[in-house]
């Protein structure tokens, strides 16, 4: 079997995550969908590493995971801050930058 199907699976997971980001309102569920997209990208990277016969793609996936961990820490801190001032975790309520 060609590794093509792994990449197709990654594309499907990525678009499910993208739909989630567009559809959901709660900031934390939004974060879960972003994690889904990052994971799909990691799956594609590991598949490319398998296609090329080198380990570089796996190392990039590893780095992406560490960056994702840092991103979640900062993002959740910001969400908690917004929740403390506006008493809501909905992204529609964080609209002070509009207009």
């Amino acid at each position, binding site marked *: 079997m060609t590794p093509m199907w792994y990449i*197709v699976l990654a594309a499907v*997971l990525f678009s499910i995550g993208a739909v989630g980001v567009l559809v959901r309102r709660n900031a934390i569920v939004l*974060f879960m969908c972003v994690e889904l997209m990052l994971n799909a990208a990691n799956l594609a990277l590991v598949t490319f590493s398998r296609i090329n016969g080198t380990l570089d793609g796996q190392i990039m*996936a590893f780095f992406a995971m560490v960056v994702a961990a840092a991103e979640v820490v900062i993002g959740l801190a910001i969400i908690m801050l917004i*929740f403390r001032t506006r008493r809501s975790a909905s992204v529609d309520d964080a609209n002070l930058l509009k207009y």
Partner: protein
Amino acid sequence: MTVITLADIMFGAVGLVAVGAALAVVSTSHLVRAGLWLVVTLGAIAVEFLLLRAEFVAWVQVLIYVGAIVVLLLFAVMLTKAPIGRSTDLDRPIWPALLVGAGSGLGLATLFAWVYASDGISAPPVGSAEKLGQNIFRDWVLPFEVLSVLLLAALVGAIVLSKKDAKS
């Protein structure tokens, strides 16, 4: 005539689990259940990593994503939503999003299928921790060090953001 191996069957089954759980993350109306479905998806993707012979990445996936990130997300859910239960105000109008998602998904899938259809698997290297460590500390030392600085910056940033008396 292609031979269907056990790995192919595993890929199909686990891929179906991953896609189904991902759809549940996007569509459930319970915040906590969304987090638990995310655990299922991430675990299924870890199994796919194992099938691709990326052992180290698979275990890092279990440790960092399932072990740390999901726990952090669930903590945030509990801190921001005191009565846990079904929420009715979670979704926006779905049709534009579905259009965008289906377009990007179909576009990406057909593009990848078209580009990689003829590529076989070349001499699969096993991504064990030993080999990955050798590669990281021989060819990827600088990005690795930059990553440690990034982690430190994230740590300091999170502390500063969550300080109670942070004067703006």
